[in-house]
């Protein structure tokens, strides 16, 4: 090949263009771009999740002190220029020894678990009904599920006080109908706590369930019927297993916030409905014992993390199957 002089500048600009394209490509597809895209969420999580948790962890290893902030520092320069690290496990030992904390934890677990099951039992038929409704109706029904979010959570819980109290709407109604002679004690009971939690968290159960059910291929049910399966059995063998991801997601979305719930047991619950969220609040704001409060928070975090990991393991097995 003979290189014509006129062709030189053309190849020069094309190589420049190529280099530019390569630069853009490396930013969007290459190593640099990949690192950038991945680093951003990690930096976010580090700054706003891991760091605060570490601070709380640090406080939990301190001791209460009359200072600002009200706990003993972990690292200290002693007089002889040595760095001393003080780690007190006393707060955790205290949690374990005082039956109040343990029973509050267990009660939280129980309330959250029972509420999750009730939410599932109420939410599944609702989600199913919405997913199988005519397409035009679905959006309306979903709006009705989401509608309560337009009012503040706190106001909705307060509204339940008005409904449940001795001279509240429900008792008033039952008395006037003549079903009861004495007002029922509804408020400040465990029942009220369950009611409040189920009422508040039901949408979080319905939405992920709806999402999985509406995506389901309905010809699978036709195939099941064609192969001799009655509708109820087809539901158990096809629809239910296929909606497992929605069941798991919905259960987590109800269970996790319900464990740490503070407002509902505080406003609707009685003296015996002690939940860990409320204990945490009291420890922090009434007793001003930050280290114990931090220890409670860390323990609660672990309490939530364990079922979460467990569920995730089940979910993974459910979706990937037993590949060989």
């Amino acid at each position, binding site marked *: 090949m003979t290189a014509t002089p006129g062709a030189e500048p053309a190849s020069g600009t094309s190589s420049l263009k190529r280099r530019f394209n390569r630069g853009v490509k490396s930013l969007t597809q290459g190593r640099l771009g990949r690192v950038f895209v991945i680093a951003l969420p990690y930096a976010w999580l580090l700054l706003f999740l891991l760091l605060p948790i570490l601070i709380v962890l640090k406080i939990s290893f301190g001791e209460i002190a009359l200072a600002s902030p009200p706990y003993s520092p972990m690292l200290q320069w002693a007089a002889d220029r040595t760095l001393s690290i003080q780690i007190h496990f006393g707060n955790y030992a205290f949690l374990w020894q005082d039956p109040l904390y343990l029973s509050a934890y267990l009660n939280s677990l129980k309330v959250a678990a029972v509420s999750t099951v009730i939410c599932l039992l109420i939410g599944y038929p609702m989600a199913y009904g919405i997913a199988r409704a005519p397409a035009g109706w679905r959006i309306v029904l979903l709006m009705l599920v989401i509608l309560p979010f337009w009012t503040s959570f706190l106001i909705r819980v307060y509204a339940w006080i008005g409904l449940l109290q001795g001279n509240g709407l429900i008792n008033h109604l039952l008395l006037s109908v003549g079903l009861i002679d004495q007002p029922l004690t509804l408020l400040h009971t465990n029942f009220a706590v369950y009611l409040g939690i189920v009422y508040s968290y039901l949408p979080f159960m319905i939405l992920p369930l709806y999402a999985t059910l509406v995506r389901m291929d309905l010809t699978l049910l*036709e*195939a099941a*019927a*064609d*192969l*001799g*399966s009655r509708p109820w059995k087809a539901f158990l063998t096809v629809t239910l297993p296929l909606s497992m991801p929605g069941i798991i997601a919905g259960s987590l979305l109800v269970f996790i916030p319900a464990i740490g719930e503070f407002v509902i047991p505080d406003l609707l619950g009685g003296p015996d409905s002690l939940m860990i969220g409320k204990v945490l609040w009291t420890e922090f704001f009434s007793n001003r014992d930050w280290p114990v409060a931090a220890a409670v928070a860390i323990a609660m975090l672990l309490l939530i993390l364990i079922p979460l990991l467990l569920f995730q393991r089940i979910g993974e097995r459910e979706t990937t199957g037993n*590949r060989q």
Partner: protein
Amino acid sequence: MPQTRRDPAVLEAWQDPDARPFLEIRKVTKVFDGSTYAVDDVSLSIFKGEFFSLLGASGCGKSTLLRMLAGLERSSQGQILIEGQDITRLPPYERPVNMMFQSYALFPHMTVEQNVAFGLKQERLSATVIRDRVGEMLELVHMSEYARRRPDQLSGGQRQRVALARSLAKQPKLLLLDEPLAALDRKLRERTQFELVNIQERVGTTFIMVTHDQEEAMTMSSRLAVMDAGRILQIGTPSEIYEYPGNRFVAEFIGAVNLFEGRVAGSEGDLLIIQSDAAPGEIVLYHAHPLTIGTPVAVALRPEKLRVLNGPPADDRNWVRGQVREIGYLGDVSVYHVGSEQGMTVQVQVTNRARRTAGPLTWDDTVCLGWDTESGVVIPA
């Protein structure tokens, strides 16, 4: 192409007036939303062991008819009988019928084995019986080594086999196939056509297949019904449908055809003489049934039935002259589009006997085309 070796007695059952049909569809109609007739007054008899195809363009009602047979759709009117028993009102899970779905509808959360066993489990059979039958079915479709896989770990062709095995596992009296090969690529589709016919022969089950692919319907079925707008236009063997189309739609839907419109001018014994503005002379062809003079008719001629002549025939019958407008080289044959002097485009197919890049004809050549009295068929205009 799959050649079906069937017992002639079974094959020709529809010609025996005393034969009892296996499946009877009596005046079945399906109306959607009160006014849309998806299936309009369809009557059909299908005999045991047949491979019957419902052929038509999309939206012609063939799938709706199939779904009514499966019980997935309720018929608005009419009756469906299997071996004399009325199943019109039976729910799908009580019918002795299984269906292979177009999307295959395999259960994604079950293994291949579990999918095939699903129908058997509904019958409360013992575990050993189920295991044996599943093994047998997977053997039949050559999927034994994939028994533990899940549907999303299979290729399209493998899924199709599993779907077939699942629908055959319960040994249904009637198997319905909804576009069973539509999702496969061309090469695989041709191979699967063979296999499906072979499997049908081996298990002896009556198959009803819905397809929009005329080639598929022709090669695989013992008989087929051509449907349009919810009605059956013609029922017959593939060769009957191809050689003796009953009407214009069927003639044009199946294969290529040249239609010469004209009027009956007279007859000479078995020969019918037709006067057409599209041909310079008379068109003469065999026609069994006498027609009154003046009846408007169309003569249907397949492209392969036409010949290239050296000049106009001496008797001035059955010929046209025109110019080659387009040439389609297909390897084994070439198709020429000839613009006739009468303003019609006539298609003619010429076998490429010798190896050469261009045929004897080229663009703008003037050619004469002729045909025999046995080549054409008269259809109502």
